[in-house]
């Protein structure tokens, strides 16, 4: 139809207007700088709880007897976020529902890898399940430890999950060892990111504009991390190529550069060619440390910035993705502060990443 083609925003609110409003409402509850400044001043975890009560989190800790554990806070934070996500997901219709499902896939991948690694080390499955992110849980999750090879894993368990198409590349008869699991994780991520990217691209409109930007960064970040982490391991350069997601801005020239890179400076040389990454690499010292912040933190900061920008436009799905990424970052921040408070380790308490 003419309207859909040229003005997709016109009909956005019919299906997704309420949910977008909801998402923006949730976003308004994200802690701001003053909240963080107050949190940082806390002496004990109970102080932290008292302050969180005055924010949007309200009474989410009211029914927990003191003394509070940081793990309980973490769990409750996640629970609240998952509750919000489920609420939105349950109301969503196509294509938003698929979009939201894609958001959960990344958590699923993490969970799968966590479970396989854990069971390799002989940890009991119950303990591992507790560590999994509840957003990425799926029915067959607990049965993951049955398999001992990737093919078996695929045939028995993964084939029923929505991750099956991403897994196709990783099937081999190799045993599951640590190296292989890492490779599987990265291959899964590559396939997932590319699929998500294509999906968002296909949605068109503002969603494409916002989401492709965020996902491209996500892909590039993975390329950098994979490269840097592969130094000094037995992963060959040829294998590395297969792990790079190809939906980022680095593709194809940057990736070609990264493939040849064999130390940190060469990675840095590649980043020099891209304005946004140059800035990130400039701010930190050589070798990824030495400066005040690590490369990872800088990436997180950039991600937060992109996600905050997602809220600048209306009538697109990026707000949902951004909301939950920001919420996740917020959970990390609060848990970090809580840990610092609990362990009386105040020197690093300021290393959280403020959102607004």
């Amino acid at each position, binding site marked *: 139809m003419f309207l859909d083609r040229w003005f997709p925003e016109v009909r956005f609110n019919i299906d997704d207007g309420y949910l977008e409003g909801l998402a923006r409402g949730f976003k308004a509850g994200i802690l701001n700088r003053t909240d963080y400044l*107050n949190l940082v*001043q*806390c*002496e004990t975890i*109970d*102080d932290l709880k*008292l*302050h969180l009560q*005055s924010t949007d989190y309200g009474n989410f800790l*009211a*029914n*927990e*007897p*003191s003394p509070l554990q940081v793990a309980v806070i973490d769990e409750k934070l996640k629970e609240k976020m998952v509750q919000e996500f489920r609420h939105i997901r349950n109301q969503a219709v196509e294509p938003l529902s698929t979009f939201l499902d894609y958001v959960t896939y990344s958590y699923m991948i993490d969970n799968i890898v966590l479970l396989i690694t854990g069971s390799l080390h002989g940890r009991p*499955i119950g303990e591992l399940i507790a560590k999994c992110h509840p957003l990425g849980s799926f*029915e*067959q999750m*607990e*049965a*993951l*430890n*049955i398999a001992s090879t990737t093919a*078996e894993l695929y*045939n*028995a*368990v993964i*084939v*029923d999950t929505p991750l099956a198409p991403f897994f196709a590349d990783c099937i081999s008869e190799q045993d599951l060892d640590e190296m292989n699991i890492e490779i599987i994780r990265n291959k899964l991520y590559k396939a997932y990111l590319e699929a998500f990217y294509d999906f968002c691209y296909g949605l068109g409109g503002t969603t494409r504009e916002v989401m492709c930007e965020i996902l491209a960064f996500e892909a590039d970040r993975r390329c950098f991390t994979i490269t840097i982490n592969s130094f000094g391991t037995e992963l060959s350069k040829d294998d590395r190529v297969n792990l790079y997601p190809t939906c980022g801005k680095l593709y194809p020239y940057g990736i070609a550069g990264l493939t040849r890179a064999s130390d940190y400076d060469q990675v840095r040389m590649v980043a020099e060619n891209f304005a946004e990454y140059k800035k990130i690499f400039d701010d930190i010292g050589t070798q990824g440390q030495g400066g005040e912040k690590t490369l990872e933190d800088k990436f997180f900061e950039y991600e937060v910035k992109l996600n905050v920008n997602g809220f600048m436009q209306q009538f697109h799905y990026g707000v949902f993705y951004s909301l939950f990424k920001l919420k996740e970052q917020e959970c990390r921040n609060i848990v970090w502060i809580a840990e610092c408070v609990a362990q009386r380790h105040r020197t690093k308490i300021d290393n959280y990443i403020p959102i607004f």
Partner: protein
Amino acid sequence: MGTLFRSQEMALCQFFLQSEAAYCCTAELGEIGAAQFRDLNKDINAFQRKFVNEIRRCDDMERILRFLEKECQKEKVPVLRLGENPMAPMPRELVDLESTLEKLEREIKEVNVNFEALKRSNLELLEMKYVLKKAQQTFELDGMAVLNPESKSDTELLGTGHDATQVHRGVHISFLAGTIPLIKVEAFERLIWRISRGTVLLRTSNIEFPLEDPATGDEILKATFFAFFQGDTLRVKIRKVCEAFRATIYPVPDSPAEIREMSIQVMTRLEDLKTLIGHTQQHRHMVLLASAKNLDLWEIKVQKIEAVYALMNCFNIDTTQRCFIGEAWVPHQDMEAIRLGLLRGSEKAECSVPSFITPIKTAETPPTYHKTNKFTSGFQAIVDAYGVSTYREVNPAPFTVITFPFLFAVMFGDAGHGFIMACLAGLLLWKEKAIMAKRDKGEIATTIFGGRYIIFLMGLFSIYTGLIYNDIFSKSFNIFGSRWYPRTSIYNLTMEADKLAGATFQLDPTPNALLGSDYRYEGRYSIGGPYPFGLDPAWAMSSNKINFINSYKMKMSVIFGVFHMAFGIVLSCFNHTYFKRRVNIICEFIPQMIFLMCMFGYLVILIFYKWTKFDASTSGCSPSLLIGLINMFLMKNEPNPKNQDGTECHMFKFYNSQESLEKALVVVAVLCFPWMLLSKPLYQRWRQGRVAYSTVRAAGSDTESVESGQSRSPTSVPDEGGHGDGHNEGFADVMIYQGIHTIEFCLGIISNTASYLRLWALSLAHSQLSEVLWNMALRKGFMMNNIGGAIVLFTIFAWWACATFGILICMEGMSAFLHALRLHWVEFQNKFYQGTGHAFEPFDFKKTHSTARLDQD
């Protein structure tokens, strides 16, 4: 009335509370509930305040109380809520309460743990029972594993005996049996099939009735399963899958005899468990029953303690640590009560040094506090919804008590509908206490209940206006006997009755109207005079009813409107005198009044004049009010024409020299405009110049007295609007402000008068709608003259009654309500009401309790 006319006089007071007595005094203040405290520690975080520990303990106790309440609900023990209001307990009671609660919590938790363990084993035994039963059926009926005595010897028991192995035709076939939640069965089957490539035979069957989950107490559906397989690798795999799906595996022996034996064992153990569970449950029930009695009391106490400490966190502590200093707005009236309260508090705390309050001077605007009762609170809420009145300005609420239901009734005018409305509201009033005690009424019900007195008055007034309109469910009552008499020619009985039934008649009150009228008006000449109250019922069936009523209602609307607005302007004068703004009386009140009177006041006079001057015989050539008004402004005038018989027909003029008077009125009204627009800013400019002059002359010696001569009124109200701030604002700002207000007022007078015509429009709509409903529905039932008519009437009446209630009373009532609201907020209040105050929010235990309740619900 006296107390509601202006808000209470407030004073900012400093409280000096001795540190030993501070708690008791604060608690007393909470019981009195007449002081709005200010947070003196705004820049201190919640967790850095003095009494944060106490608050935290209260939070913890509230958590325990919530836990207890939840347990009570789970156990279906009713929580007693007697609506008691215990005094805030002393701080030392806090410790006792805390330990009691903690003991209770520990006890219940312990019982719960035991209970859960018992339940769990109960569940396991139950499941085992089903598995064994199924095993019996499977082996006996299906004949799948006919266990011969010979093969039994070959049976090897593996592991801990949790599973059985059979030898069947030389092949080892083992099986695992257990239970699994029903929702997981499908995925479980699929996974088993996948890992074994179809070599495992899985049999599942549902357990018919739901089992209870011991942890949550929810009901869950489960299924039993039997997995038959060969070899140990598969066994390990199946066990892993079972683990993953939270399936429980039960040891099942392989011979029917053993199964039977085991079943009996399970049964006996189940019986034992049942008595045990019964005992535990009884114990739990007793504990909860005991706590349910006190739960409400404890809740209130804890909330009070918490409120007291939260307030004490807002106090300053003086340097010697001996006393707390708080600041609060207190109404002058309640000062004595608060002093007594402080005295009581000191006594209770056995503190020899008294705590006291002293008023302090401040330039801040005090909060607005209207002392309302249950009757006036609804009307005050209507006014406050628009804006809380500025401190000490005239409060429209006392007038709203009458004008609001009245204007509503003018639009809603139907005695029948009004009667139903009054009855419903009367029911609410009658059951007031019972409803008030009930909590969690729901939002809409709470709103309606809050406005019960408004609705009651609206109903009563509607009965009154309905009788005036003679409209009762759209029908008229002939109470005093109509003053219209039929002309005999109609009732000469040659006409058939059928034709007469639905016929309408034209009514013409002219005494010698021969042709137009079917009825003759006798009121003027007969002894009784005109119909004594309201509309003559004969109009109800006349065809020119609408013409007659419209003219009457329209004129009435304008009269009400002009009076209402004039009253609003008069009220503004009260404000000006009270706040000592004499300049406003001269520069605003007087020209405004003249402006209104010259235009629409004159119109009202003309309406009355027309009503009295012209009677039925001369009404044919009476002048039109509307045309007259338009001509007045256009300054057009035409001479009255003469009748054929030489008398004057008042077609264009009411009276002689009308033209010159009207011209004068228009000129005066137009002159009012620059008066309103310019006089005040110019006066202020002049005065400002004088002040500047005197400042120079007196060299700052006595400027104060001149400058603040006006704002130093005894009430110390900072002036709002252009006047007080005129010193700082430029002349242009004052001019623009005044311009906006003047234009708004002048245009407003015209548009507001027109707006009052909604009184007519809505009442017309209401009466027409109810008439349509009567004609379309109930009349159909009356029109059948046989026995079938009774049945039709019976069914139609229900429909008519529902529609009358739903559409005419609820929906029309709502719309009339909204229009009345608008007439008050916009047309009436904008003449005098500023509504820029902030409400008084005293520290009151009743409020903290109810809000806490709301939060929980």
